[in-house]
Protein backbone atom coordinates (compact mmCIF):
# COMPACT_ATOMS: atom_id res chain seq x y z
CA UNK A 1 0.00 0.00 0.00
CA UNK A 2 1.25 3.49 0.36
CA UNK A 3 4.27 4.40 2.39
CA UNK A 4 3.53 4.76 6.06
CA UNK A 5 4.57 8.39 6.04
CA UNK A 6 2.58 8.85 2.89
CA UNK A 7 -0.72 8.55 4.79
CA UNK A 8 -1.43 12.01 6.26
CA UNK A 9 -1.48 10.95 9.89
CA UNK A 10 -1.86 14.41 11.32
CA UNK A 11 -4.74 15.29 9.07
CA UNK A 12 -6.53 12.02 9.73
CA UNK A 13 -6.16 12.45 13.48
CA UNK A 14 -7.52 15.98 13.39
CA UNK A 15 -10.31 14.97 11.07
CA UNK A 16 -11.23 12.01 13.24
CA UNK A 17 -11.36 14.17 16.38
CA UNK A 18 -13.40 16.84 14.66
CA UNK A 19 -15.87 14.42 13.13
CA UNK A 20 -16.36 12.51 16.37
CA UNK A 21 -16.91 15.71 18.31
CA UNK A 22 -19.26 16.95 15.58
CA UNK A 23 -21.30 13.77 15.82
CA UNK A 24 -21.33 14.11 19.61
CA UNK A 25 -22.36 17.75 19.33
CA UNK A 26 -25.34 16.61 17.33
CA UNK A 27 -26.36 13.57 19.27
CA UNK A 28 -25.61 14.10 22.97
CA UNK A 29 -28.59 14.32 25.28
CA UNK A 30 -27.26 17.06 27.49
CA UNK A 31 -27.25 20.32 25.58
CA UNK A 32 -24.29 21.86 27.41
CA UNK A 33 -22.18 18.86 26.50
CA UNK A 34 -23.30 19.38 22.90
CA UNK A 35 -22.12 22.98 23.16
CA UNK A 36 -18.75 21.94 24.48
CA UNK A 37 -18.33 19.27 21.80
CA UNK A 38 -19.14 21.97 19.28
CA UNK A 39 -16.23 23.98 20.75
CA UNK A 40 -14.00 20.99 20.32
CA UNK A 41 -15.16 20.73 16.69
CA UNK A 42 -14.32 24.38 16.14
CA UNK A 43 -10.84 23.83 17.60
CA UNK A 44 -10.43 20.76 15.38
CA UNK A 45 -11.37 22.86 12.35
CA UNK A 46 -8.92 25.55 13.39
CA UNK A 47 -6.27 22.87 13.56
CA UNK A 48 -7.22 21.78 10.02
CA UNK A 49 -6.82 25.34 8.83
CA UNK A 50 -3.41 25.50 10.47
CA UNK A 51 -2.66 22.21 8.78
CA UNK A 52 -3.58 23.91 5.51
CA UNK A 53 -1.08 26.60 6.52
CA UNK A 54 -3.72 29.32 6.80
CA UNK A 55 -2.72 30.56 10.29
CA UNK A 56 -4.58 33.83 10.15
CA UNK A 57 -7.87 32.08 9.39
CA UNK A 58 -7.19 29.42 12.01
CA UNK A 59 -6.57 32.00 14.73
CA UNK A 60 -9.52 34.07 13.52
CA UNK A 61 -11.67 30.94 13.66
CA UNK A 62 -10.59 30.26 17.22
CA UNK A 63 -11.04 33.89 18.24
CA UNK A 64 -14.48 34.25 16.64
CA UNK A 65 -16.00 30.85 17.14
CA UNK A 66 -14.45 29.56 20.33
CA UNK A 67 -14.22 32.99 21.90
CA UNK A 68 -17.59 34.42 20.94
CA UNK A 69 -20.06 32.11 19.20
CA UNK A 70 -19.54 29.22 21.63
CA UNK A 71 -20.15 31.52 24.58
CA UNK A 72 -23.28 32.84 22.85
CA UNK A 73 -24.58 29.34 22.29
CA UNK A 74 -23.88 28.29 25.84
CA UNK A 75 -25.51 31.42 27.18
CA UNK A 76 -28.57 30.78 25.06
CA UNK A 77 -28.73 27.25 26.36
CA UNK A 78 -28.71 28.60 29.89
CA UNK A 79 -31.17 31.40 29.21
CA UNK A 80 -33.69 29.07 27.66
CA UNK A 81 -33.45 26.65 30.59
CA UNK A 82 -32.39 23.81 28.32
CA UNK A 83 -29.48 22.98 30.59
CA UNK A 84 -31.54 20.86 32.94
CA UNK A 85 -33.84 19.09 30.55
CA UNK A 86 -32.46 16.08 28.72
CA UNK A 87 -33.81 15.51 25.24
CA UNK A 88 -34.90 12.34 23.53
CA UNK A 89 -32.79 12.39 20.39
CA UNK A 90 -34.50 9.98 18.10
CA UNK A 91 -38.03 10.20 16.75
CA UNK A 92 -39.72 8.96 13.65
CA UNK A 93 -39.49 12.20 11.69
CA UNK A 94 -35.82 12.52 12.60
CA UNK A 95 -35.04 9.18 10.95
CA UNK A 96 -36.36 10.70 7.72
CA UNK A 97 -34.01 13.59 8.36
CA UNK A 98 -31.14 11.19 8.84
CA UNK A 99 -31.99 9.46 5.57
CA UNK A 100 -31.95 12.78 3.74
CA UNK A 101 -28.66 13.76 5.38
CA UNK A 102 -27.07 10.50 4.30
CA UNK A 103 -28.43 11.00 0.78
CA UNK A 104 -26.92 14.49 0.69
CA UNK A 105 -23.63 13.14 1.99
CA UNK A 106 -23.65 10.48 -0.70
CA UNK A 107 -24.45 13.05 -3.37
CA UNK A 108 -21.53 15.19 -2.17
CA UNK A 109 -18.95 12.44 -1.70
CA UNK A 110 -19.81 10.39 -4.79
CA UNK A 111 -18.76 12.99 -7.36
CA UNK A 112 -15.66 13.69 -5.29
CA UNK A 113 -14.58 10.10 -5.36
CA UNK A 114 -15.44 9.39 -8.95
CA UNK A 115 -14.46 12.67 -10.60
CA UNK A 116 -11.20 12.29 -12.46
CA UNK A 117 -10.34 15.99 -12.44
CA UNK A 118 -9.55 16.17 -8.74
CA UNK A 119 -6.86 13.60 -9.04
CA UNK A 120 -5.04 15.71 -11.55
CA UNK A 121 -4.52 18.52 -9.04
CA UNK A 122 -0.88 18.68 -7.94
CA UNK A 123 -0.35 16.94 -4.61
CA UNK A 124 0.47 20.16 -2.87
CA UNK A 125 2.16 23.27 -4.15
CA UNK A 126 4.59 24.94 -1.80
CA UNK A 127 2.81 26.70 1.00
CA UNK A 128 1.60 30.05 -0.26
CA UNK A 129 2.86 32.79 2.01
CA UNK A 130 -0.33 33.93 3.66
CA UNK A 131 1.55 36.64 5.44
CA UNK A 132 -0.64 38.79 7.65
CA UNK A 133 0.99 41.74 5.93
CA UNK A 134 -0.33 40.68 2.55
CA UNK A 135 -3.72 39.77 3.97
CA UNK A 136 -3.87 43.21 5.50
CA UNK A 137 -2.97 44.85 2.21
CA UNK A 138 -5.53 42.77 0.32
CA UNK A 139 -8.21 43.58 2.86
CA UNK A 140 -7.48 47.25 2.76
CA UNK A 141 -7.00 47.48 -0.98
CA UNK A 142 -9.00 45.06 -3.01
CA UNK A 143 -11.65 44.09 -0.46
CA UNK A 144 -12.14 47.40 1.31
CA UNK A 145 -15.81 47.69 0.39
CA UNK A 146 -16.73 44.18 1.58
CA UNK A 147 -14.80 44.99 4.75
CA UNK A 148 -16.86 48.13 5.38
CA UNK A 149 -20.02 46.20 4.54
CA UNK A 150 -19.00 43.48 6.99
CA UNK A 151 -18.42 46.14 9.67
CA UNK A 152 -21.89 47.52 8.94
CA UNK A 153 -23.46 44.06 9.04
CA UNK A 154 -21.78 43.26 12.34
CA UNK A 155 -22.93 46.49 14.00
CA UNK A 156 -26.45 45.98 12.65
CA UNK A 157 -26.47 42.38 13.90
CA UNK A 158 -25.20 43.49 17.29
CA UNK A 159 -27.88 46.14 17.66
CA UNK A 160 -30.51 43.81 16.21
CA UNK A 161 -29.62 41.01 18.59
CA UNK A 162 -29.83 43.35 21.54
CA UNK A 163 -33.17 44.75 20.46
CA UNK A 164 -34.64 41.32 19.78
CA UNK A 165 -33.53 39.80 23.02
CA UNK A 166 -34.16 42.90 25.14
CA UNK A 167 -36.90 42.42 27.67
CA UNK A 168 -38.76 45.76 27.83
CA UNK A 169 -40.23 45.60 31.32
CA UNK A 170 -42.11 48.84 31.88
CA UNK A 171 -42.23 48.75 35.65
CA UNK A 172 -38.61 47.79 35.88
CA UNK A 173 -37.54 50.76 33.83
CA UNK A 174 -38.83 53.16 36.45
CA UNK A 175 -37.20 51.89 39.67
CA UNK A 176 -38.17 54.72 42.01
CA UNK A 177 -40.90 57.38 42.22
CA UNK A 178 -39.84 60.50 40.41
CA UNK A 179 -38.35 63.13 42.79
CA UNK A 180 -41.06 65.57 41.73
CA UNK A 181 -43.99 63.83 43.45
CA UNK A 182 -41.85 62.91 46.38
CA UNK A 183 -41.19 66.62 47.03
CA UNK A 184 -44.79 67.77 46.92
CA UNK A 185 -46.00 65.04 49.32
CA UNK A 186 -43.82 66.82 51.88
CA UNK A 187 -41.74 65.21 54.59
CA UNK A 188 -44.58 65.27 57.16
CA UNK A 189 -46.93 63.08 55.23
CA UNK A 190 -44.16 61.30 53.49
CA UNK A 191 -44.25 58.12 55.41
CA UNK A 192 -47.68 56.78 54.28
CA UNK A 193 -47.16 57.87 50.65
CA UNK A 194 -43.57 56.76 50.78
CA UNK A 195 -44.42 53.40 52.23
CA UNK A 196 -47.30 52.91 49.81
CA UNK A 197 -45.09 53.72 46.90
CA UNK A 198 -42.25 51.64 48.11
CA UNK A 199 -44.43 48.79 49.26
CA UNK A 200 -46.12 48.77 45.86
CA UNK A 201 -42.78 48.84 44.12
CA UNK A 202 -41.43 46.15 46.44
CA UNK A 203 -44.58 44.00 46.02
CA UNK A 204 -44.48 44.51 42.30
CA UNK A 205 -40.84 43.61 42.28
CA UNK A 206 -41.54 40.48 44.26
CA UNK A 207 -44.15 39.44 41.72
CA UNK A 208 -41.57 39.44 39.04
CA UNK A 209 -40.60 35.80 38.19
Amino acid at each position, binding site marked *: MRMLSDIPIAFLMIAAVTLVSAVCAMSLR*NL*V*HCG*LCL*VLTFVGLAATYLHLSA*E*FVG*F*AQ*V*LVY*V*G*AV*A*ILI*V*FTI*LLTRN*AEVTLSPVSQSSLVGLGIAIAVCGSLVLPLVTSPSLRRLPAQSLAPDA*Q*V*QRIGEKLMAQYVIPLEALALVLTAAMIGAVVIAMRDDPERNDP*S*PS*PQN*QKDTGSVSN*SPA*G*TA*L*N*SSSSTSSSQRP
Partner: protein
Amino acid sequence: METLDQIFVLAKHWLVARVPEPLAWLATILLSIGPLITVFASCFAITTIVERKALGRIQNRFGPNRVGPFGLLQPLADGLKMLIKEDLVPAQADKVVHLLAPFALVVPAWLTFSVLPFGRNMTVIDLDAGLLFFFAVGASSELAVFMAGWSSRNKYALMGAMRGIAQMISYEVPLVLSTVAVVMSVGSLSLPSIVEAQSAYVFGMPTWHVFTPWGLSGFILFLIAGAAEANRAPFDLPEAESEIIAGYLTEYSGFKYALFFMGEYLGLFAITGMGITLFLGGWTAPVSFLATTPSWFWFFAKFGAIIALFIWVRGTVPRLRMDQLMKFAWKFLVPLTLVNLVVAAFWHFSGTWQFPGAIFARWLLGAGFIGGAYVTLGRALHTNQFPPRVYAYAE
Protein backbone atom coordinates in the same frame (compact mmCIF):
# COMPACT_ATOMS: atom_id res chain seq x y z
CA MET B 1 28.46 40.07 26.54
CA GLU B 2 27.00 38.58 23.41
CA THR B 3 27.28 35.08 24.81
CA LEU B 4 25.60 36.07 28.10
CA ASP B 5 22.71 37.47 26.13
CA GLN B 6 22.38 34.36 24.03
CA ILE B 7 23.40 31.98 26.85
CA PHE B 8 20.15 30.11 26.83
CA VAL B 9 19.91 29.87 23.06
CA LEU B 10 23.44 28.50 22.81
CA ALA B 11 22.73 26.05 25.62
CA LYS B 12 19.69 24.84 23.80
CA HIS B 13 21.52 24.37 20.54
CA TRP B 14 24.29 22.62 22.37
CA LEU B 15 21.84 20.23 23.96
CA VAL B 16 19.92 19.58 20.76
CA ALA B 17 23.14 18.70 19.06
CA ARG B 18 23.58 16.05 21.69
CA VAL B 19 20.28 14.36 20.92
CA PRO B 20 20.23 11.66 18.16
CA GLU B 21 18.90 12.93 14.85
CA PRO B 22 15.42 11.39 14.53
CA LEU B 23 14.31 12.82 17.86
CA ALA B 24 15.92 16.17 17.23
CA TRP B 25 12.66 17.99 16.52
CA LEU B 26 11.15 16.55 19.70
CA ALA B 27 14.19 17.71 21.65
CA THR B 28 14.03 21.25 20.31
CA ILE B 29 10.40 21.48 21.26
CA LEU B 30 10.91 20.07 24.73
CA LEU B 31 13.99 22.22 25.31
CA SER B 32 12.05 25.34 24.55
CA ILE B 33 8.98 24.32 26.53
CA GLY B 34 10.78 22.95 29.56
CA PRO B 35 12.58 26.15 30.64
CA LEU B 36 9.47 28.15 29.86
CA ILE B 37 7.38 26.09 32.25
CA THR B 38 9.99 25.98 35.01
CA VAL B 39 10.66 29.70 34.84
CA PHE B 40 7.04 30.70 34.92
CA ALA B 41 6.02 28.11 37.49
CA SER B 42 8.69 29.49 39.78
CA CYS B 43 7.57 32.98 38.91
CA PHE B 44 4.09 31.94 40.00
CA ALA B 45 5.45 30.71 43.30
CA ILE B 46 7.54 33.79 43.89
CA THR B 47 4.74 36.10 42.95
CA THR B 48 2.32 34.53 45.43
CA ILE B 49 4.70 35.09 48.32
CA VAL B 50 5.86 38.49 47.14
CA GLU B 51 2.27 39.55 46.70
CA ARG B 52 1.26 38.50 50.18
CA LYS B 53 4.34 40.12 51.71
CA ALA B 54 3.81 43.32 49.77
CA LEU B 55 0.09 43.46 50.62
CA GLY B 56 1.03 42.99 54.25
CA ARG B 57 3.50 45.77 54.12
CA ILE B 58 0.94 48.01 52.47
CA GLN B 59 -1.48 47.21 55.23
CA ASN B 60 1.10 47.92 57.94
CA ARG B 61 1.60 44.28 58.78
CA PHE B 62 4.18 41.61 58.07
CA GLY B 63 3.45 39.16 55.35
CA PRO B 64 3.88 35.49 55.95
CA ASN B 65 7.14 35.05 57.78
CA ARG B 66 6.74 31.78 59.52
CA VAL B 67 7.63 29.32 56.84
CA GLY B 68 11.27 29.46 55.96
CA PRO B 69 13.43 32.54 56.36
CA PHE B 70 11.24 35.64 56.01
CA GLY B 71 8.41 33.32 54.85
CA LEU B 72 10.11 32.54 51.57
CA LEU B 73 9.11 28.89 51.67
CA GLN B 74 5.45 29.80 51.98
CA PRO B 75 4.55 28.90 48.32
CA LEU B 76 6.14 25.52 48.92
CA ALA B 77 3.86 25.15 51.89
CA ASP B 78 0.85 26.29 49.89
CA GLY B 79 1.66 23.94 47.06
CA LEU B 80 2.10 21.08 49.46
CA LYS B 81 -1.15 21.98 51.16
CA MET B 82 -2.97 22.02 47.83
CA LEU B 83 -1.68 18.58 46.97
CA ILE B 84 -2.63 17.22 50.36
CA LYS B 85 -6.10 18.77 50.50
CA GLU B 86 -8.95 16.41 49.66
CA ASP B 87 -10.34 17.05 46.23
CA LEU B 88 -14.12 17.33 46.82
CA VAL B 89 -16.46 16.99 43.83
CA PRO B 90 -20.11 17.94 44.50
CA ALA B 91 -22.55 15.02 44.05
CA GLN B 92 -24.75 16.82 41.54
CA ALA B 93 -21.75 18.16 39.66
CA ASP B 94 -21.20 17.30 36.02
CA LYS B 95 -18.09 15.19 36.73
CA VAL B 96 -16.49 15.35 33.27
CA VAL B 97 -16.87 19.06 32.76
CA HIS B 98 -15.92 19.70 36.41
CA LEU B 99 -12.67 17.85 35.86
CA LEU B 100 -11.93 19.44 32.49
CA ALA B 101 -12.57 23.05 33.53
CA PRO B 102 -9.22 23.76 35.24
CA PHE B 103 -7.29 22.15 32.39
CA ALA B 104 -9.34 24.19 29.86
CA LEU B 105 -8.18 27.28 31.73
CA VAL B 106 -4.50 26.38 32.28
CA VAL B 107 -3.65 24.95 28.86
CA PRO B 108 -4.56 28.14 26.93
CA ALA B 109 -2.74 30.14 29.62
CA TRP B 110 0.48 28.21 28.94
CA LEU B 111 -0.12 28.48 25.19
CA THR B 112 -0.12 32.26 25.37
CA PHE B 113 3.55 32.20 26.50
CA SER B 114 4.61 30.49 23.30
CA VAL B 115 4.60 33.70 21.32
CA LEU B 116 6.15 36.12 23.86
CA PRO B 117 9.74 37.22 22.99
CA PHE B 118 11.65 36.85 26.31
CA GLY B 119 14.92 37.91 24.82
CA ARG B 120 16.75 38.42 21.56
CA ASN B 121 15.57 35.50 19.36
CA MET B 122 14.30 33.78 22.51
CA THR B 123 10.73 33.35 21.30
CA VAL B 124 9.36 29.83 21.46
CA ILE B 125 7.45 30.17 18.15
CA ASP B 126 7.87 33.24 16.04
CA LEU B 127 4.36 33.28 14.55
CA ASP B 128 3.52 35.67 11.79
CA ALA B 129 0.19 36.48 13.51
CA GLY B 130 1.56 36.14 17.00
CA LEU B 131 -0.65 38.79 18.57
CA LEU B 132 -3.78 37.28 16.97
CA PHE B 133 -2.75 33.85 18.35
CA PHE B 134 -2.30 35.41 21.78
CA PHE B 135 -5.84 36.84 21.78
CA ALA B 136 -7.39 33.78 20.16
CA VAL B 137 -6.06 31.56 22.91
CA GLY B 138 -6.84 34.18 25.56
CA ALA B 139 -10.47 34.22 24.43
CA SER B 140 -10.92 30.53 25.26
CA SER B 141 -10.43 31.20 28.98
CA GLU B 142 -14.03 32.47 29.18
CA LEU B 143 -15.20 29.05 28.11
CA ALA B 144 -13.19 27.44 30.89
CA VAL B 145 -14.73 29.84 33.41
CA PHE B 146 -18.20 28.88 32.17
CA MET B 147 -17.42 25.17 32.38
CA ALA B 148 -16.20 25.62 35.93
CA GLY B 149 -19.12 27.73 36.99
CA TRP B 150 -21.80 25.63 35.38
CA SER B 151 -20.47 22.17 36.13
CA SER B 152 -20.31 22.72 39.89
CA ARG B 153 -24.11 23.03 40.02
CA ASN B 154 -23.89 25.81 42.60
CA LYS B 155 -25.85 29.03 42.43
CA TYR B 156 -22.87 31.06 43.63
CA ALA B 157 -20.60 29.30 41.16
CA LEU B 158 -22.96 30.00 38.26
CA MET B 159 -23.37 33.63 39.36
CA GLY B 160 -19.59 33.99 39.60
CA ALA B 161 -19.13 32.35 36.19
CA MET B 162 -21.65 34.66 34.56
CA ARG B 163 -20.01 37.69 36.11
CA GLY B 164 -16.59 36.44 35.11
CA ILE B 165 -17.63 35.84 31.51
CA ALA B 166 -19.41 39.16 31.23
CA GLN B 167 -16.36 40.94 32.64
CA MET B 168 -13.88 39.10 30.44
CA ILE B 169 -15.88 39.68 27.29
CA SER B 170 -16.42 43.33 28.08
CA TYR B 171 -12.71 43.93 28.76
CA GLU B 172 -11.47 41.89 25.84
CA VAL B 173 -12.69 44.66 23.51
CA PRO B 174 -10.60 47.51 24.98
CA LEU B 175 -7.64 45.07 25.43
CA VAL B 176 -7.60 44.19 21.72
CA LEU B 177 -8.32 47.75 20.63
CA SER B 178 -5.40 49.15 22.60
CA THR B 179 -3.05 46.64 20.94
CA VAL B 180 -4.45 47.64 17.52
CA ALA B 181 -2.78 51.05 18.00
CA VAL B 182 0.58 49.36 18.33
CA VAL B 183 -0.03 47.04 15.39
CA MET B 184 -1.06 50.02 13.31
CA SER B 185 2.07 51.95 14.01
CA VAL B 186 4.41 48.96 13.71
CA GLY B 187 2.58 47.39 10.81
CA SER B 188 2.97 43.73 11.76
CA LEU B 189 1.39 41.26 14.09
CA SER B 190 4.51 39.29 14.92
CA LEU B 191 5.80 40.24 18.37
CA PRO B 192 9.60 40.08 17.70
CA SER B 193 9.10 42.57 14.86
CA ILE B 194 7.17 44.83 17.26
CA VAL B 195 10.06 44.71 19.72
CA GLU B 196 12.44 45.32 16.84
CA ALA B 197 10.48 48.47 15.98
CA GLN B 198 11.10 49.81 19.48
CA SER B 199 14.78 48.94 19.73
CA ALA B 200 16.19 52.15 18.28
CA TYR B 201 17.75 54.75 20.64
CA VAL B 202 17.41 58.50 20.20
CA PHE B 203 20.04 60.49 22.14
CA GLY B 204 20.14 57.70 24.61
CA MET B 205 16.37 57.50 25.09
CA PRO B 206 14.83 54.27 23.80
CA THR B 207 12.00 54.73 21.26
CA TRP B 208 9.58 52.63 23.29
CA HIS B 209 5.98 53.11 22.42
CA VAL B 210 5.29 54.13 25.97
CA PHE B 211 7.20 57.34 25.29
CA THR B 212 4.58 58.41 22.73
CA PRO B 213 1.29 59.97 23.88
CA TRP B 214 -0.78 57.23 22.39
CA GLY B 215 1.69 54.65 23.65
CA LEU B 216 1.47 55.88 27.25
CA SER B 217 -2.34 55.97 27.32
CA GLY B 218 -2.45 52.71 25.33
CA PHE B 219 -0.16 51.06 27.91
CA ILE B 220 -2.31 52.25 30.81
CA LEU B 221 -5.51 51.15 29.07
CA PHE B 222 -3.86 47.82 28.22
CA LEU B 223 -2.90 47.24 31.82
CA ILE B 224 -6.35 48.14 33.11
CA ALA B 225 -8.08 45.86 30.56
CA GLY B 226 -5.47 43.18 31.20
CA ALA B 227 -6.12 43.33 34.93
CA ALA B 228 -9.81 42.85 34.28
CA GLU B 229 -9.07 40.03 31.85
CA ALA B 230 -7.04 38.22 34.47
CA ASN B 231 -9.58 38.89 37.21
CA ARG B 232 -6.99 40.86 39.16
CA ALA B 233 -7.19 43.57 41.75
CA PRO B 234 -9.99 46.02 41.35
CA PHE B 235 -11.76 43.68 38.97
CA ASP B 236 -11.60 40.44 40.98
CA LEU B 237 -15.39 40.39 41.16
CA PRO B 238 -16.00 36.81 39.94
CA GLU B 239 -14.41 35.28 43.01
CA ALA B 240 -15.21 38.11 45.40
CA GLU B 241 -15.16 36.36 48.74
CA SER B 242 -17.53 38.76 50.44
CA GLU B 243 -20.42 38.24 48.04
CA ILE B 244 -20.23 34.88 46.31
CA ILE B 245 -17.65 32.97 48.27
CA ALA B 246 -15.10 32.03 45.64
CA GLY B 247 -17.22 32.57 42.57
CA TYR B 248 -16.73 29.81 40.06
CA LEU B 249 -14.02 28.34 42.24
CA THR B 250 -16.42 27.62 45.10
CA GLU B 251 -16.73 23.91 44.50
CA TYR B 252 -13.08 23.41 43.74
CA SER B 253 -10.56 22.27 46.25
CA GLY B 254 -7.22 20.68 46.32
CA PHE B 255 -5.21 20.38 43.16
CA LYS B 256 -7.94 21.67 40.83
CA TYR B 257 -8.16 24.83 42.89
CA ALA B 258 -4.39 25.14 42.66
CA LEU B 259 -4.60 24.75 38.89
CA PHE B 260 -7.20 27.51 38.69
CA PHE B 261 -5.06 29.68 40.92
CA MET B 262 -2.05 29.04 38.70
CA GLY B 263 -4.12 29.64 35.58
CA GLU B 264 -5.08 33.03 36.86
CA TYR B 265 -1.54 34.02 37.68
CA LEU B 266 -0.35 32.72 34.31
CA GLY B 267 -2.98 34.92 32.70
CA LEU B 268 -1.57 37.83 34.63
CA PHE B 269 2.00 36.97 33.54
CA ALA B 270 0.88 36.70 29.90
CA ILE B 271 -0.77 40.11 30.05
CA THR B 272 2.31 41.69 31.62
CA GLY B 273 4.55 39.94 29.07
CA MET B 274 2.43 41.25 26.23
CA GLY B 275 2.32 44.71 27.77
CA ILE B 276 6.10 44.75 27.94
CA THR B 277 6.60 43.58 24.39
CA LEU B 278 4.03 46.00 23.01
CA PHE B 279 4.72 49.14 24.95
CA LEU B 280 7.91 48.82 27.00
CA GLY B 281 10.12 47.65 24.18
CA GLY B 282 10.23 43.97 25.15
CA TRP B 283 13.79 42.94 25.94
CA THR B 284 15.43 46.26 24.84
CA ALA B 285 17.51 47.99 27.47
CA PRO B 286 16.15 51.24 28.85
CA VAL B 287 19.33 53.20 28.10
CA SER B 288 21.53 53.00 25.01
CA PHE B 289 24.78 52.28 26.76
CA LEU B 290 23.25 49.38 28.60
CA ALA B 291 22.28 47.79 25.26
CA THR B 292 24.93 45.18 25.58
CA THR B 293 23.45 43.76 28.77
CA PRO B 294 21.55 40.49 28.27
CA SER B 295 18.11 41.12 26.70
CA TRP B 296 16.23 38.60 28.77
CA PHE B 297 17.36 40.38 31.97
CA TRP B 298 15.51 43.53 30.91
CA PHE B 299 12.43 41.58 30.01
CA PHE B 300 12.23 40.04 33.47
CA ALA B 301 13.16 43.36 35.13
CA LYS B 302 10.26 45.12 33.50
CA PHE B 303 8.22 42.00 34.24
CA GLY B 304 8.91 42.35 37.94
CA ALA B 305 8.15 46.06 37.88
CA ILE B 306 4.75 45.56 36.36
CA ILE B 307 3.90 42.69 38.69
CA ALA B 308 4.81 45.01 41.57
CA LEU B 309 2.54 47.62 40.05
CA PHE B 310 -0.33 45.09 39.95
CA ILE B 311 0.30 44.12 43.55
CA TRP B 312 0.43 47.74 44.55
CA VAL B 313 -2.89 48.41 42.81
CA ARG B 314 -4.40 45.34 44.44
CA GLY B 315 -3.45 46.69 47.81
CA THR B 316 -5.15 50.04 47.35
CA VAL B 317 -8.16 49.94 45.03
CA PRO B 318 -11.44 48.61 46.44
CA ARG B 319 -13.42 46.14 44.37
CA LEU B 320 -15.77 47.55 41.70
CA ARG B 321 -19.46 46.84 41.73
CA MET B 322 -20.79 44.85 38.78
CA ASP B 323 -22.61 47.67 37.01
CA GLN B 324 -19.73 50.08 37.63
CA LEU B 325 -17.46 47.42 36.12
CA MET B 326 -19.59 47.20 33.02
CA LYS B 327 -20.11 50.90 32.67
CA PHE B 328 -16.37 51.53 33.10
CA ALA B 329 -15.55 49.10 30.33
CA TRP B 330 -18.08 50.11 27.73
CA LYS B 331 -18.50 53.78 28.47
CA PHE B 332 -14.95 54.69 29.37
CA LEU B 333 -12.33 52.27 28.15
CA VAL B 334 -13.71 51.53 24.70
CA PRO B 335 -14.19 55.17 23.70
CA LEU B 336 -10.80 56.07 25.12
CA THR B 337 -9.05 53.29 23.16
CA LEU B 338 -10.77 54.50 19.99
CA VAL B 339 -9.52 58.02 20.67
CA ASN B 340 -6.13 56.49 21.30
CA LEU B 341 -6.28 54.88 17.86
CA VAL B 342 -6.96 58.29 16.32
CA VAL B 343 -4.04 59.84 18.11
CA ALA B 344 -1.79 56.95 17.05
CA ALA B 345 -2.83 57.62 13.45
CA PHE B 346 -2.15 61.32 13.92
CA TRP B 347 1.25 60.50 15.44
CA HIS B 348 2.04 58.22 12.55
CA PHE B 349 1.15 60.74 9.89
CA SER B 350 2.69 63.67 11.67
CA GLY B 351 6.00 61.80 11.71
CA THR B 352 7.18 63.81 8.73
CA TRP B 353 6.98 67.24 10.48
CA GLN B 354 10.44 68.72 10.11
CA PHE B 355 10.18 72.19 11.71
CA PRO B 356 12.00 72.61 15.04
CA GLY B 357 10.03 71.61 18.09
CA ALA B 358 8.02 69.20 15.90
CA ILE B 359 8.39 66.46 18.48
CA PHE B 360 7.19 68.80 21.20
CA ALA B 361 4.20 70.00 19.10
CA ARG B 362 3.24 66.50 18.17
CA TRP B 363 3.46 65.43 21.80
CA LEU B 364 1.44 68.39 22.92
CA LEU B 365 -1.32 67.81 20.39
CA GLY B 366 -1.50 64.05 20.98
CA ALA B 367 -1.46 64.29 24.76
CA GLY B 368 -3.90 67.19 24.67
CA PHE B 369 -6.36 65.26 22.56
CA ILE B 370 -6.21 62.18 24.73
CA GLY B 371 -6.27 64.26 27.92
CA GLY B 372 -9.32 66.14 26.67
CA ALA B 373 -11.12 62.92 25.83
CA TYR B 374 -10.14 61.49 29.22
CA VAL B 375 -11.47 64.52 31.08
CA THR B 376 -14.75 64.75 29.19
CA LEU B 377 -15.39 61.01 29.46
CA GLY B 378 -14.49 61.12 33.10
CA ARG B 379 -16.89 63.96 33.77
CA ALA B 380 -19.63 62.30 31.70
CA LEU B 381 -19.15 59.03 33.54
CA HIS B 382 -18.99 60.62 36.94
CA THR B 383 -22.44 62.24 36.88
CA ASN B 384 -24.35 61.19 39.91
CA GLN B 385 -27.16 59.58 37.96
CA PHE B 386 -28.69 57.80 40.89
CA PRO B 387 -31.73 59.57 42.30
CA PRO B 388 -31.55 60.44 46.01
CA ARG B 389 -32.11 57.43 48.24
CA VAL B 390 -35.63 56.98 49.58
CA TYR B 391 -35.68 55.94 53.23
CA ALA B 392 -39.02 54.25 53.46
CA TYR B 393 -39.09 53.25 57.09
CA ALA B 394 -36.45 55.32 58.86
CA GLU B 395 -37.93 58.69 59.73
